[in-house]
């Protein structure tokens, strides 16, 4: 299962960051990374740009933010990725995920991975979106 449209992608994937920004521990840690990451999804097409330093999530094409890295994947892969069910190096090797820009910068997010995954699964469970939960 995947998302129905860009709004839904923004609500959930963007929502991970919006919720994490409010968290006492995650908020400042994400800001400290200073990262700007763009996510470009297909099926459905969706573009999200997350400016960690300024705690902003932008939906749609933006000319005024300059991402340090852009990740391309199907929205379905993103859904699984944010639940910790996708291994990034394997996914890149299989061509399921493409990263443009500074891959190394994404490693700054690695220590936060499991916490962000719980934020996401928590949101899905709260909204009764069992259809989006994946088996790990």
């Amino acid at each position: 299962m995947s998302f129905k449209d860009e709004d839904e992608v923004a609500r959930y994937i963007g929502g991970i960051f919006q919720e994490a920004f409010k968290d006492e521990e995650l908020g400042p840690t994400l800001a400290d990374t200073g990262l700007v990451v763009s996510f470009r999804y297909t099926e459905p097409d969706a573009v999200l740009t997350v400016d960690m330093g300024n705690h902003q999530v932008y939906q749609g094409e933006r000319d005024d933010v300059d991402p340090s890295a852009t990740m391309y994947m199907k929205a379905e892969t993103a859904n699984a990725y944010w639940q910790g069910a996708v291994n990034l190096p394997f996914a890149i090797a299989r061509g399921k995920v493409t990263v443009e820009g500074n891959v190394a910068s994404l490693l700054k997010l690695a220590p936060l991975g499991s916490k962000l995954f719980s934020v996401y699964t928590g949101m899905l469970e709260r909204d009764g979106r069992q259809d989006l939960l994946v088996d790990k």
Partner: protein
Amino acid sequence: MVATGEQRTYSSVSVSPLSFWATTAEEREESFRLLREHDPVSWQVPLEGSLMPPQQQGIWAVVRHEDIVYVSKNPEIFSSAQGVQQEEVPGDILAAAESFLGMDAPEHSRLRRLVSAAFTPKQVAKIEDQIKNQAEQIVDDLLATGDCDFVEQVSKRLPMWTIYEMMGLDPAKRETAAAAADGMVSWADEDVAAGREPGQVLNESLVTLLSTGMEFAEHRRKNPANDLMTNLVQAEIDGEKLTDEEIGAFFVLLSVAGNDTTRNTITLTMKALCDFPEQRDLLLEDFEGRIDTAIEEFVRWVTPVMTFRRTVTQDTELRGRQISAGEWVVMFYSSGNRDESVFADPHRFDVTRRPNPHVAFGGGGPHFCLGNMLAKTQLRAIFDQLLHRAPKLEVGEPSYLVGNFVRGVKSMPCRLG
């Protein structure tokens, strides 16, 4: 949880900064000697890493031979499942890069058994013949080339050729795969990184090896041949087979463990044989009779893998130090192999040393180097060729790789004399 009552102070002898790993092995040994004597299980600042910020407050450095063996042989206390490198590496990368090196029983045993099943006696005999021919060809080329970089011309060629020939990898893909294998262990070195960030070097190297390995596995499922990859895709124990992902991760492990270790052992053994000509003469007096014993000394002397890490699964005690569950223990093999309580005159290169209970292939236990026989076969073949056919070969000063994992040599000039 840190045990109450114990004050943690970092050791006054630090082995953490990258600047420490930029010194020579002989200089580092001075610190290890002090630690072996005064602080054998020392609390150290987390080793300087370059991929992500340290999540640990510190690491326990284990430097005595006896303790390295103890840690190695008690995997239920000292686990490999959370990674074996001494710097923080993202979990995704560990899962894709370490294969059974980064696992505990029962997963470790299952995967290692399946991989071992691919090394049939027939396959091993074929590999031995290949190695002899490769060593001969490499020395033919060396004699034709004359003075050159020994690493490029000799030590780099044999392990790559051996590993990828036995796997059956398309020759056109071997250089790229070997370069990626280098990147996996040398991301901290400025020359290798060439302006890229360490994480980028690591990621690009890993993805290259994974995709090469997985594509190759798929290819051999459809087009079986008489090689190790075919055996791997066909290996079956109790109805279980390896997945392409598992083979991909094993391909990464094999490329890394099989390339750099033997390469650097060949390079630095050649240097030792030049530095101690009386040992070279002694070996040549009875090559067939002495080479097997000498090889043990080659690997002790070089100790190509300097460190491996474990994560403690339960509160435990080692030499009176209270170690808490979740903390990291790093074994310093370079130090264990110079432990004066085990090796008489440990700083002497002695090709007749017996007994020689070195920990260069690990301190025993389930993770003992699977490729040790293969490495010994390569060392025997290449030194048989080099010492007999290039008797006046001399080498210059090596240029070392900066890093805290493998003891690497980037280049070393040689003269045929």
